[in-house]
Structures are given as C-alpha cells and as structure tokens.
C-alpha cells in the first residue's frame, strides 16, 4: 500500500473557549494545505472525523458544514466511531484512494467539547456505550476502572504504575506547544488527585478538550512540500503502509477477556501483516491512553510487551523520551497530556507521527524514527484503528 502523507497540521488542543468548530477546522486545514503546498482545489474529497456534533452541537450534516466553511464543493463525509472517529476517517479516506475513487483526500478530525456542561459531555460520550451499560448508569471512567481492576488482580498492576503513565505523558506534553497540559506531574500528584472511579483518579483520566487536526493523503507520487523547502519524493516521503480496523462488542459484559482489548490485537495483527512488519520494528507510537490503564492495555495488545509486563516497563522509563532505547510511546503527550478532542485525536496521532518521521518534532523528536504506529480506540474497545507509517 503506497499512500503518501502530503501535508499535516493541528491546532492547539485545550479549553479553546474563544474559537468555534469552523475556526478550528479552518486553522487545521489551512495549515495542512500550506504544509503540502496545495490549494483547496487540489483536494478531491473531504472526510471529517467527529463524534459529538449531533448531541452537543446539534449539527448532523457535518461534511457539507465544513465543506462550506472551507470553500470546497467536493464530496464530503462525516465518519463516526466514538473516540476512534478520526482514525476511522483516515481509514476511509485511504480506502477511497485505494479504490481509485479519489486521488488526493483531506481528512479533518475536529471536536468542540468545552462549550458544553460537563454532565452533558459525559452523557454524550456515553452515546458510545452499550444499552446495558447506559441503563446501569455506567460512564467510560467507570468501564475503564473495571478493566483496570481486572488487570490489577490478574497481573498485580499497581495504581502507582498507572500513575507513571500520566507522569510520562505530561513530561512529553511539556515539550509540545500544542498540548493542553504543559505542567509536569509526579506519581504523588496523581495518587493524591480526586478519585473519579476507583482505582482511577482525576490525573489518570484524559481531559475534555477542543481541537482539530488535518491530514492530506494521496496516492499520487508528485513531490509535496516543496513550498516548505522539503523534497518529499521517493524514499523520503512519509508513507502510510498499513491501515486496519477491528470491531468488538460494544459492552464489556459480552467479552471473553477483560485483560485485553481484542479489537486492538486484531487491528494490529492485520496492520503488521499489511506492512510486513512486527512490533519490534516500531520506533515511535501514539497510542490511545484515554485513561492511564488504556496505555498499559495498548502496549500489551499491540505486541510491544508481553501481557502483564507493560506497566513495569512504562514505570522504568522504557518508552519515555530520552530514556528509551527502542520505542517511544506518546511523544505528543498522548490523550492524557496533549488533550482529547475525541474526533480529532486519531488524526492528531498521525500528524504527530508524520512530524516524528520527518524529523521536525522539535524538542520532543524521537531520534532516528523510521517506522511509526498510531492506535486509536472507540468506546471501551469496540473499535480499534491501527495505522503504520514509514519514511
């Protein structure tokens, strides 16, 4: 599969109360077009990754909504898959190119959450849950707390080890000017933060965020980025070499195992097969750490570490910038540190990895990164999307 990343951009993530979804989209898309050296007329289609525009923004015609804002008359689609909406939008964009339908496609991930009351946002997010879980009054922190509890009992994972995920991701976010959080944490900070759903505490949870990210993907081998002085032709271009999606049950109760997210494992297996690569080949990865326990699950389900061992490895610094000799995880700060505007997250992950592979990630640059993996999850693991990029 030869899909090229022509241009990328992201807005700052955070509590962006003075900007609208339109402004977020325009900033991200303008940046990506500029990065690619393209104009809006060069784009054949728009895929928008978004989860909550209907429930929170009362806007259910999002493809046309953003096409209008961006001055596009091309086909435009909204793709939804809870917090995996961004990754799914990219997957569909890639498929449209592989099908020969379009040559160059714009993928926009966008979410505006902080304009709404926290309880309304929490209720809207549960739109991604199963009927039984919603009827029982469960929330996603509650569901991930259940997963955490099982993992703790099965493998002896500790709350301090989970806290170390947040500590690492804030260290990385501290180096990312677009991250929502710029502050450093200690394990003690996390342990002393307010309890949300035992054993998860406030600082184990990713925040409610606003933000947008955009990627232009193409099957065309024309040179891109010449206006930026880059010559991303041939072997120097960033390629997406795998794009895989897997689906599991919406609810936790129907699953055979609660110590893995099967969808992550299956999407990863397919992606590795597509790319002809394995977990040992990955230099840098953005994984879906909506809660600290989710990063531990991800590193095991993606095959980076054997089951039950990731928490200790993270605590040891094995995937931290400046310490890791093999793999760095969530250099952007992840969902925990960089923020989690849900529809934008899956797109932002690929923006970050593109910058890492280009070598333009600044202070958070992973040295000698050549192969990268993005892992985006919807709900409590009902949808998983894995992309592998290569320079």
């Amino acid at each position, binding site marked *: 599969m030869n899909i090229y990343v022509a241009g990328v951009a992201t807005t700052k993530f955070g*509590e962006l109360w003075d900007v609208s979804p339109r402004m977020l989209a325009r900033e991200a898309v303008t940046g990506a077009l500029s990065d690619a050296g393209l104009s809006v007329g060069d784009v054949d289609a728009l895929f928008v990754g978004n989860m909550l525009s209907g429930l929170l923004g009362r806007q259910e015609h999002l493809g046309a909504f953003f096409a209008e804002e961006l001055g596009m008359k091309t086909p435009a689609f909204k793709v939804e898959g809870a917090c995996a909406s961004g990754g799914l939008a990219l997957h569909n964009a890639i498929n449209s190119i592989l099908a020969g339908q379009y040559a160059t496609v714009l993928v926009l991930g966008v979410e505006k959450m*902080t304009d*709404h009351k926290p309880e309304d946002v929490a209720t809207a997010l549960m739109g991604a849950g199963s009927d039984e879980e919603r009827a029982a009054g469960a929330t996603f922190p509650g569901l991930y707390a259940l997963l955490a509890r099982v993992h703790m009992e099965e493998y002896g994972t500790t709350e301090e080890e989970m806290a170390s995920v947040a500590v690492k991701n804030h260290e990385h976010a501290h180096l990312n000017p677009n991250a929502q959080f710029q502050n450093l944490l200690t394990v003690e900070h996390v342990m002393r933060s307010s309890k949300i759903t035992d054993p998860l505490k406030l600082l184990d949870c990713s925040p409610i965020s606003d933000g947008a990210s955009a990627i232009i993907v193409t099957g065309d081998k024309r040179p891109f980025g010449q206006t930026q002085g880059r010559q991303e032709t041939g072997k120097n271009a960033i390629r997406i070499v795998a794009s895989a999606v897997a689906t599991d049950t919406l609810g936790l109760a129907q699953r055979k195992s609660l110590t893995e997210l099967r969808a992550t494992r299956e999407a990863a297996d397919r992606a590795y097969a597509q790319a002809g690569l394995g977990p040992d080949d990955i230099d840098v990865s953005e994984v879906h750490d909506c809660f600290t326990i989710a990063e531990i699950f991800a590193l095991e389900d993606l095959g980076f570490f054997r089951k039950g061992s990731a928490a200790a490895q993270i605590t040891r610094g094995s995937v931290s910038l400046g310490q890791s000799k093999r793999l760095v995880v969530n250099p952007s700060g992840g969902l925990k540190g960089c923020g989690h505007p849900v529809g934008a997250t899956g797109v932002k992950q690929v923006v970050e990895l593109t910058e890492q592979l280009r070598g333009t990630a600044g202070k958070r640059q992973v040295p000698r990164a050549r192969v990268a993996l993005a892992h985006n999850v919807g709900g409590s693991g009902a949808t998983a999307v894995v992309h592998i990029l290569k320079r």
Partner: protein
Amino acid sequence: MVGIVSYGTYIPNYRIRVADIARAWKKDPTEVTRSLGVEEKAAPAVDEDAVTIALEAALRCLQVSKGKPSDIDALFVGSESHPYAVNPTSTIVGELLGVGNDYLAVDLEFACKAATAGMQAIAGLLESRAISYGLTIGADTAQSKPHDVLEYTSAAAGAAYLMGRDALVARLVAYTSFSSDTPDFWRRDGIRYPSHAGRFTGEPAYFAHTAGAARRLFEKAGCQPDDIDYCVFHMPNGKFPREIARRLGFSGEKLAPSLTVTSLGNPYSASMLVGLAAVLDIAKPNARIFAVSYGSGAGSDAFLFETTAALPKVQNAQRKTKNSVQQQMEKKTYIDYVQYLKQTHKI
C-alpha cells in the same frame, strides 16, 4: 466626595460542614474541602429569605449610624433569590424599615454583583446631588441543586451599606465596571436552581472580568497593589479570590482579612460585601481598600475606598452589638444534611 456612612451585615445562625454534605453524597470529605477551600457555610433558618436577611442587615446598618430610615432617598436590593419574580424586595424592606414613601426603590439582579451595581448607581445619584442618602443591600439565600458542586458553597447572608456625602467612614475614591455577554452561570425564570458551565466559570468569566475591572481601577485611581492595605474579591470558593489576588500582585496578608468564604461559603450577592465589612471591622483610619465584585453573565464592579477617622466609632458599635462579621461567624449552630435540606425547603 461620596462614600460609606455606615454598614451592617447579617449572617444566619446555622452552619453546615462541607464535609457533611460530601459524606451524604459518598464523596471524600477531605478532598472536597481541600479542593474548594471551604470548611463550612451559613444556611438560612426555615423562615428566612432574601427579604428577612436584607432587612436584618439594613437594621444593623442603621443601628450603628446616626441615620434615620426616613433619610434614605434610594433603596436598592440586589439578590439572586428575590422571593418574588414580580413584587419588589426593596419595597418590603423599605416598608419594614419605615423609610416612608419619598424614596426610589429598586430591585437589582446581576448574579453575585447586583448589590455592588446598586452601590455604583447610588454613588452616581449622590455625586449628581439627586439624593442625600442611599442604601444598597446584597442579600441571598443562595440556591443550589442537591449534588451539584454549588451545594458545597452556596450560602445565606446579607450586607447593607448606607452611602452619603457626609460623616463618611470610608471615602469612595474611584470605581470602575467591566461587563460582557459571557454565559457562565444562569437561571431561567421559573427554574428553581441555577446552571453553570463548569470550568468555563473560571478563566473567561470570573478571572477575566475581575481582572478587567481591577486593572481599569488601578489606571483610573493611579494606584498599584503596594499602595493598597486590603483587597477584597467575590468569593465563589476559597481558591478563586486567592488566585486573582496573586495575579494582580496582592500579598496573602492583604487578602486574608476578607476571606470569609472559608467558614461562611458564598452568599452570592452578599459575598464581596460581607468580605468588605470584615475588613472595615478591623481597618484603621486612612487604610486603602481595593474591592472587586463579580457577577455571572458577566461583570465586575471595582471600588477603591479610603477609611476615615470616623470608622473606629462604627467599629466599636458593631462589636458592642455583637454584630461584627467575626462575632457573627463565631456564633453558630451546626445542622446536619437532612436538617439543611428541611431548612432550605428541599424536603
């Protein structure tokens, strides 16, 4: 020069510990009190409302001054909990005080800054010599929905300020106001409890407006924090006033005397005015007091006062009648959560 002739406050006798509310909802009491910076709050008796509280504060204000009720030319009451949507609080209070009929009665509504808006309006009427004395009162039995985070802080209290041109205990040196359409906290007509937009009530709301009015006042009065002896801010919780004081460059010592929120909670329209009274209770003559209110929706009124040699006499009278803010805060009866629900007509 116009300013404060006299002041009076009323804090209901009842207190509920924030920890007891937290326990009722299975929250960690230590965590809640620490994060809000509030230990307990004042609750109204079952027969108290904004009218009775406003009246009590006004009676105490007049008690410590030489002023007669009939001297009052304007009576403004600011509240979020006026008992009637139509039927003014101000006329009931005026009638019970014995003001007579030759006065301007006004009910004000602007979230927690309604009464300080009244203070500015009365200052204008005094400066234009349209009136000789005006009374502005902030009084609330602050509403909050059970289990909402507001429940930990929403409190009951009142503060009344008699303003005039002579025999001032504090001169009003300068004042400013800062307003915008910022929907951080609201309650529609007929709806029992207010709604709020969570963290949006912080930076773009409380902090932006309080700082906006404060910075304009620094410019207008040509002063800076070093020139000020005491600062007072609206106190929705224990954290916000400390943070805005820090950002504006005030030391903790200049803020501390006004921090009634720790043991009183947030009596909405009365919050900043009770804090100001706590400072007036202890300030020496020629002290400069920098006070900024905040009302959701949103706006802030900022005031620079300078106390006079007449203040100690009023301070003594407050103490003698056991009506200083400190004395009222110490006189209390604790109630449990169920009793609190009864007294606030929730069950």
